[in-house]
């Protein structure tokens, strides 16, 4: 069986989930031939090497200016071309914004569907099963894909990166492509990323705020509390969207992944996109809404107004 992994670049490196997928498919599909595709402009030697080390036997590269920034159409064309060349059984990508955008497109162009955001794959005999948590993680949907070609994306963070990979230098196959005007109707303008970067990975305590904080100035109390506790602040995308805090503090699927001892979630509803970035030993939630999903994950909680509770907490801890 042949497997094609759609490799992605993030911050000038091979994106972690891509490496996790290579590890996982090497484990589940032992005797298969695993290749990776790598698209971009000015593809680096070291990225190709890294894919090899993590288990890709062949790397199919397309290195053209049109692929410098991800756009759906050019990538649909590029990936379709590589698939034509390899004829793989499974095409798999990390479920980043790009991965989830791309695979269903390529799939339906071949008249098949795509299983998105899986957290596990199993193979029993000929049968391959794909597992996706749904309904805000309250249920597990197990799916099968019929037919000889299966498109899959994984939930970010689902698979571990092998710390001691033993793969070798891969064979590199460079693929040619040309684009037409109609492939380039949607145009890249710019990418906005935080100017400051803060590493929240090693924080032992995180005081995180959500839309319930109510404004930029109101974040002050979270900063004060975090500073007393020797920790960091964090935020949901709702807060970075409104420019209450810098993007770098975003935690979750598209923000940072954190694993503190204590995570205080104030005014956060508990959207799956936020929760998926947190592996805390202890989660304390403060929210006015008793029905908020965050209480499904909380070890401790207060149903109340964070503007009253946090100052009290700060005062009592300082005393």
């Amino acid at each position: 069986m042949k497997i094609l992994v759609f490799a992605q670049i993030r911050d000038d490196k091979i994106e972690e989930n891509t490496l996790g997928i290579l590890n996982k498919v090497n484990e589940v599909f032992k005797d298969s031939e695993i290749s990776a595709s790598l698209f971009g402009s000015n593809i680096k030697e070291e990225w190709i090497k890294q894919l090899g080390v993590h288990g890709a036997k062949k790397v199919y590269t397309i290195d053209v200016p049109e692929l410098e920034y991800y756009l759906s159409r050019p990538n649909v064309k590029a990936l379709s071309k590589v698939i034509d060349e390899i004829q793989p059984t499974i095409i798999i990508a990390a479920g980043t914004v790009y991965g989830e955008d791309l695979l269903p497109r390529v799939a339906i162009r071949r008249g098949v569907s795509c299983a998105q955001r899986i957290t596990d794959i199993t193979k029993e005999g000929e049968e391959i099963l794909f597992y996706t948590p749904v309904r805000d993680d309250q249920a597990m949907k197990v799916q099968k894909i019929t037919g000889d070609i299966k498109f899959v994306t994984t939930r970010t963070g689902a698979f571990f990166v092998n710390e001691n990979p033993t793969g070798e230098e891969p064979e590199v196959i460079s693929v040619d492509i040309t684009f037409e005007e109609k492939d380039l109707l949607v145009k890249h303008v710019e990418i906005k990323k935080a100017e400051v970067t803060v590493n929240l990975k090693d924080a032992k305590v995180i005081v995180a705020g959500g839309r319930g904080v109510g404004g930029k100035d109101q974040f002050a109390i979270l900063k004060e509390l975090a500073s007393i506790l020797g920790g960091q602040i964090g935020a949901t995308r709702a807060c970075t969207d409104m420019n209450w805090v810098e993007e770098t503090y975003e935690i979750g699927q598209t923000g940072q992944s954190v694993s503190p001892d204590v995570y205080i979630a104030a005014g956060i509803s508990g959207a799956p996109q936020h929760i998926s970035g947190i592996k805390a030993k202890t989660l304390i939630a403060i929210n006015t809404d008793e029905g908020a999903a965050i209480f499904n994950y909380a070890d401790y909680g207060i149903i109340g107004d964070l503007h009253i509770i946090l100052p009290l907490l700060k005062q009592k801890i300082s005393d």
Partner: protein
Amino acid sequence: MKIIVFIRQIVNPQVKLQGVDYFDTSRISEDDLIINPFDKNALEGALKLKDSESAEVTAICVGGIKPSKAVREAIAMGCNDAVEVVDDNYYLEDPMILAKIYSKIVEKIGDVDLIFTGCEEQSSSSYAVPAMLAELLDIPSVLYAEEIEKTVDRFRISHVLEGGRKIVEMPMRGLISCTDSQYFVPRYTSMRGILTSKRAQIPQWSNEDLKLDEATVCENAASLTVSSFSNIVIEKDSYILKEEEPDEMVDKLLAKLKEDNIKLGV
């Protein structure tokens, strides 16, 4: 400008289905049925264009336990009209089949400029419908939009990206999937809207109207099939305080943390 918004009716994720057969919806009351939250964001995106560009907005709901509730709410929010599509032979678990049905709906309505969808459905989501629909219709599209700005003849759209946001430009005919960013915070229904929605005639379409080849949209045509659903039981022994004086609750929380040997600071 003609806009279609695809909305889905789901069981509110706050309603716990744990311990209940997943497909047993008999215990669901009408109050538990909501428009998928991201689809309300999509409605908002379309209605903003109705306000600024006098666009005509039609909401479409395919399937659902009581779709009339969803489409009437969409009209109450400000949509010009709505259509319910129900056909028991349609298999709605496969995003490819959904996309086929939607593309036929778009074709039947005709002359559609823009399609709005939610970025994902929060029930048994496939996370794939908007991308597939855009490909089937062969139209430009931007997924996970957070903000839309109209320039002279194009849309400048900011969308979700890991670690930030990305801005792209799209022609004014295409598909946009919407997130729950500040820009898409849904408006409330107005009194006038509610009255209008009560009086609205809502067409119900089935395959008699869409005339799809049934063999391509029934369960046998599916390429993605569900082999099982099971509950993930998150039963946490949580310590949650409520309905006391804030001061007391904070004292109790700190005492309990101490008792459990949990250090707040480093």
